[in-house]
């Protein structure tokens, strides 16, 4: 799974195992992966194949036991927790399956959350929030609360929150897993737009073959290794 052009994401010889009930269960035993900047990759595979572990490592919330993990110019495998938190704040956005919005915050406040970690004025934050809400088609609903909105709309808030700090990398964990087909297609179209027009590098874990069709290529994981790659026509 290598690319000839300079990779944006590069995993080399990554090993990861978990101790479960006194037994070490190996998830990856030497995983290699490169993803160029601006790619849109869908990762599919059966449960337990390592999709979530891969996504967690790319998000810097889990670390490989050995091997190297580089994103852009950052070696995540060598970073401590504080450095990884700072890296996430500035370089990565994440879209969750169940949106994971904070219920006591309005739409705009949810989207604004990652900007609290940046040295921006209140006015600058508001401008950015308005811009991304407009981008995801939720302009005018900034003051509403997520609980009163549909799943598709909530996921669009989640996407707005993920891109508001203008990260280079967007990680999506089953972003359409909780949506009907129509809403799912809207969300996927939006991801494709972000990839094609805003040059976001997207890694999307999904069980949905229809969702994978929106990606530029699809990687199939099984037992901790990539077994197949399909490129979009």
């Amino acid at each position, binding site marked *: 799974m290598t690319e000839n052009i300079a990779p944006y994401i590069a995993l080399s010889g990554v090993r990861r195992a978990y101790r479960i009930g006194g037994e070490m269960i190996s998830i990856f035993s030497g995983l290699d992966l490169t993803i160029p900047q601006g790619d849109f990759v869908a990762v599919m595979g059966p449960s337990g194949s390592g999709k979530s572990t891969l996504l967690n490592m790319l998000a810097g*919330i889990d670390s490989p036991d050995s091997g190297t993990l580089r994103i852009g110019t950052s070696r995540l495998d060598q970073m401590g*927790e*504080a450095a990884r*938190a700072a890296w*996430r704040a500035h370089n990565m956005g*994440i879209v969750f399956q169940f949106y994971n919005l904070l219920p*006591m*915050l309005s739409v705009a406040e949810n989207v604004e*959350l990652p900007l609290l970690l940046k040295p921006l004025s209140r006015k600058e*934050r508001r401008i950015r929030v308005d811009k991304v809400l407009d981008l995801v088609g939720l302009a005018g609903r900034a003051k509403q609360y997520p609980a009163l909105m549909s799943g598709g709309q909530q996921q669009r808030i989640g996407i707005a929150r993920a891109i508001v700090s203008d990260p280079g990398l967007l990680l999506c964990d089953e972003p359409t897993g909780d949506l009907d087909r129509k809403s799912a297609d809207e969300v996927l179209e939006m991801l494709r737009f972000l990839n094609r027009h805003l040059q976001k590098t997207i890694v999307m874990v999904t069980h949905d073959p229809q969702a994978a069709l929106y990606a530029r290529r699809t990687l199939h994981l099984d037992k901790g290794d990539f077994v197949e790659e399909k490129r979009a026509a």
Partner: protein
Amino acid sequence: MTFFALARKNAWRKPLRTVLLMVSIAVAFLIYGLTASFLNGAQGTAGASDDILGVTSAGGRTQPLPMAMMARIAADPDVAAVGYVMRLRGFVDVEKNVVAISAGDPDRLLAVNGKGLGLTPALVEAIGQARDKVLVGRALAEAQGWRVGERVTVTAFDMARADGGREWRFEIAGIFEGEDATTDTYFMIARYDYVNAARARGKDTVDAFIVRPHAGVAPGELAVRIDTLFANSATPTRTQSEKQFLEAFLRQYADTGLIVNLVVGAAFVTLLMIVVNTMVFAVRERTFEIGVLKTLGFSRRGIMALILGETLFVFAVGGGLGLVLAKLATLLAGPALGLVLSLPVLAKALAILAALGLATGALPAFNAMRTPIIKAFRTR
């Protein structure tokens, strides 16, 4: 939105729980505010001076001192002025209506502590008009509803008149205000020559001498010198500052400071346990969301600050409410209660408030800070 606004919104997630927490904090700080105000003001110690010395008998305050001692005290070159008082306690109309009278020489009282008591030459002149004239403190006058020119009769508990009666009749010549709100004005000033002449026993003795040192003189050193002067006499003395004197006087009845500290300490320990317990549960309920915030890039310190900000907000609102109520109570309470919520008391209350806010938030904040993101995500 700001970081603090996020903490505030977190605090208001369950409004009833938050309101109940705030109410319990408010009650605790109301108790603190009132007890500290009592300690600060009720005895008049807040307004008492550290510079003015009181000379009493080393054998106890009920032991009289001969008037002749005054000349020896006044002879010390460091003494600027000396006064004296003889105390008379009694009641007006009913036994529960207790009043205190300090009988002295008004001119000397003016010289020694005129500023502290709010005495003026006009008041001293007014009391000098007749021997049975008295000056009444503002707090006592308001509590009794007395006016200038009114005649009052005080029935003494102990001090009998030479004619066998215990009724002492006075005419109010004026009202003294005290230097400020912290000055104890719940007493009267009578003329010593009148009381001394009419009393049955203990003539020409006083309960205490009051000494004002010259500017620049260390009161502590002068106090030691005065006590040394009478160490081998028939009436050895104990000289203290006015403040020490009043505090010691109160300790005769109870160590109010200790009682207040115990009451307040118990209230705060209980409060600490309630709030810590509630906050631990409140934060545990949100473990998943803390994982989300960490995933968005919030650092461990940021998470800790968020939870501490939340508890500080709850304490600021609850404690602030309690202190405002305490302040209102001190303003509305009768002057006889002598409650004074002064700036130092308020500053101490705010320091306790901040310390408790941080202490109660520390455990849940520490737990939230340490929770790994992956573990947090498993709690859904």
